[in-house]
């Protein structure tokens, strides 16, 4: 009995029980489809986060006050740490050749107002360098003036949402706004950007860093964002920054310097675990489908007991009987797997159409694993019923008992 005959025979048997075959195929394809779809979702989330970070450039160092021993995570509270000051920024710029640009960042929340309108927004204090470091763009007007870092100026750049809410159709350029008790003049409006790393960049006001620190009565910066000249220098630049700050902070290493890679690595680990967890859940449905195949094959064997007896009477060896049922089981699971691939790819295509921000693409390892598992499931779960058929006593089988 050659392979083609076996396939044809199995095909005829499966066609003979159309509904049962379709249901089993359904089970298998849901299992495989779930693996592919869920892992695609996990990978999509990871790709999304990676893209967000990559948009900032991969040459970024982030300095924050305080020190933790854990890598990758920022300390939650600064606590007793020495403040991170504007002088620190100047020292870094002066002493490290590897630093291309640097933007200090101070963050506060304040009520702003123009005329009768008020709004609670996040106020960022920085320098003109923030624009290239964070890959931001100005919509109209200009960005912060290039004054000395420790000199404030009563000028502000506002986000798109802030412009809409406070000024409506009115031209905001040159208009005064109140931030807390201070008066500023609007010099520019940022281009629409939307959410970026958890902050709605359209709903902020950006002022010179010295002004913001005075406004919020802050001694320490929130962050220093540093852009390094080349990605290969990022580790030595990080060391430079640590050395410079340690010297300035009386020999104590009381700041944390994160590289983009370490933050990204942390996210990658978390989302990788998420993907695996999703794959695990999907694997359960895949194994349920495998057991479904075994169930169907067992029923099929007991139903076709007289047929097994006949095949034996016609000269079939136990080995041939084994093959007949095994091929049927593998055909069933392979077809289900193939259908599942289709379902998975179709599903993830629909998902990425519906949520363009989420680049869902099934990872190759999951596709390979699901396909292999679906084939193996047929062989594995088909063996028991097939062996049962092969071992049937032909006399008893012919009698249909």
């Amino acid at each position, binding site marked *: *009995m*050659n392979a083609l*005959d076996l396939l044809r*025979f199995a095909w*005829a*048997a499966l*066609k*003979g029980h159309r509904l049962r075959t379709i249901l089993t195929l359904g089970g298998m394809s849901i299992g495989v489809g779930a693996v592919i779809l869920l892992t695609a979702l996990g990978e999509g989330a990871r790709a999304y986060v990676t893209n967000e970070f990559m948009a900032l450039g991969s040459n970024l160092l982030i300095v924050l006050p305080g020190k933790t021993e854990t890598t990758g995570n920022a300390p939650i509270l600064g606590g007793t740490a020495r403040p991170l000051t504007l002088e620190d920024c100047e020292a870094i710029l002066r002493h490290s050749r590897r630093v291309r640009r640097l933007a200090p960042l101070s963050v506060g929340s304040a009520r702003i107002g123009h005329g009768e309108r008020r709004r609670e927004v996040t106020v960022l204090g920085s320098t003109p360098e923030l624009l290239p470091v964070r890959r931001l763009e100005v919509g109209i007007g200009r960005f912060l003036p290039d004054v000395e870092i420790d000199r404030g100026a009563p000028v502000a750049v506002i986000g798109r949402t802030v412009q809409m809410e406070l000024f409506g159709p009115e031209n905001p350029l040159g208009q005064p706004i109140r931030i807390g008790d201070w008066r500023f003049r609007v010099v520019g409006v940022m281009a629409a950007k939307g959410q970026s790393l958890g902050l709605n960049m359209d709903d902020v006001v950006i002022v010179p860093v010295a002004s913001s620190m005075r406004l919020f009565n802050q001694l320490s910066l929130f962050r220093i964002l540093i852009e390094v000249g080349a990605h290969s220098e990022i580790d030595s630049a990080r060391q430079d920054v640590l050395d410079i700050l340690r010297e300035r902070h009386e020999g104590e290493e009381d700041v944390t310097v994160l590289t983009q890679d370490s933050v990204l690595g942390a996210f990658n680990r978390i989302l990788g675990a998420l993907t695996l967890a999703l794959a695990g859940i999907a694997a359960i449905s895949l194994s349920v489908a495998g057991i479904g195949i075994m169930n169907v094959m067992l029923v099929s064997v007991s139903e076709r007991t*007289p*047929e097994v*007896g*006949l*095949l*034996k*009477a*016609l*000269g*079939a*060896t*136990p*080995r*041939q009987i084994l093959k007949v049922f095994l091929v049927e089981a593998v055909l069933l699971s392979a077809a289900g797997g193939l259908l599942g691939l289709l379902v998975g790819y179709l599903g993830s295509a629909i998902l990425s159409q519906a949520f363009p921000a989420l680049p869902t693409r099934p990872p190759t390892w999951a596709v390979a694993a699901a396909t292999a598992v679906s084939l193996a499931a047929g062989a594995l779960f088909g063996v028991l019923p097939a062996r049962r058929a092969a071992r049937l006593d*032909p*006399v008893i089988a*012919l009698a249909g008992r």
Partner: protein
Amino acid sequence: MIELRGLTRHFHVGDQTVHALRAVSLAVPDGDYLALMGPSGSGKSTLLHILGCLDRPTSGSYVLDGHEVGSLPEGELAEIRSRKIGFVFQFFHLVPRLTAAGNVELPMILAGIRPGERRARAAKALAAVGLTDRASHRPDQLSGGQRQRVAIARATVMGPSILLADEPTGNLDRASGREIIELIERMNRDGLTVVVVTHDPEIGGRARRILKLVDGRIASDGGPS
């Protein structure tokens, strides 16, 4: 040539031992036409199964064409069934999802014969039983007599030397039954050894030789009375 010497077959049912065959000795020359008769439970079917290498004797010897086959492993018995023996059953045992031709091709598929040759031989076998125009019908589109003729075509397509028929007319009306037995007799005249198990004295009476079994023993062996 079939030679049985001191053949016994026991079954264990619960803690009881059933003696289906007790010391059966028998010689069936090539081309013989033998009817196996006897009451239910007399061992007719068991003997037929052993003759057809579907079952093995508990003791004694079964020599088929000069080779001891009573103790061969399952794989070699399958080979003998494939080449030397054709079965016809009371309930036809056609595979419902296959056409008449497909059913006739089954033993050839198992024997690994090429598709082209298979089709040619199946067509020839169906022609021999007068079913050329029913080759592409499924069993449920055929009458009982036609089904049994498909089964006979299937049993003989591999060119066996022995045809074993277990109540071949038991599920047919009288007219169809006669047609079937006449078909089998025609094949016997062409040299096929035929062993028929039957309850029907009319069918049994047509055989060249009648073997009566009672309680697993040969009660009588001779020509029709």
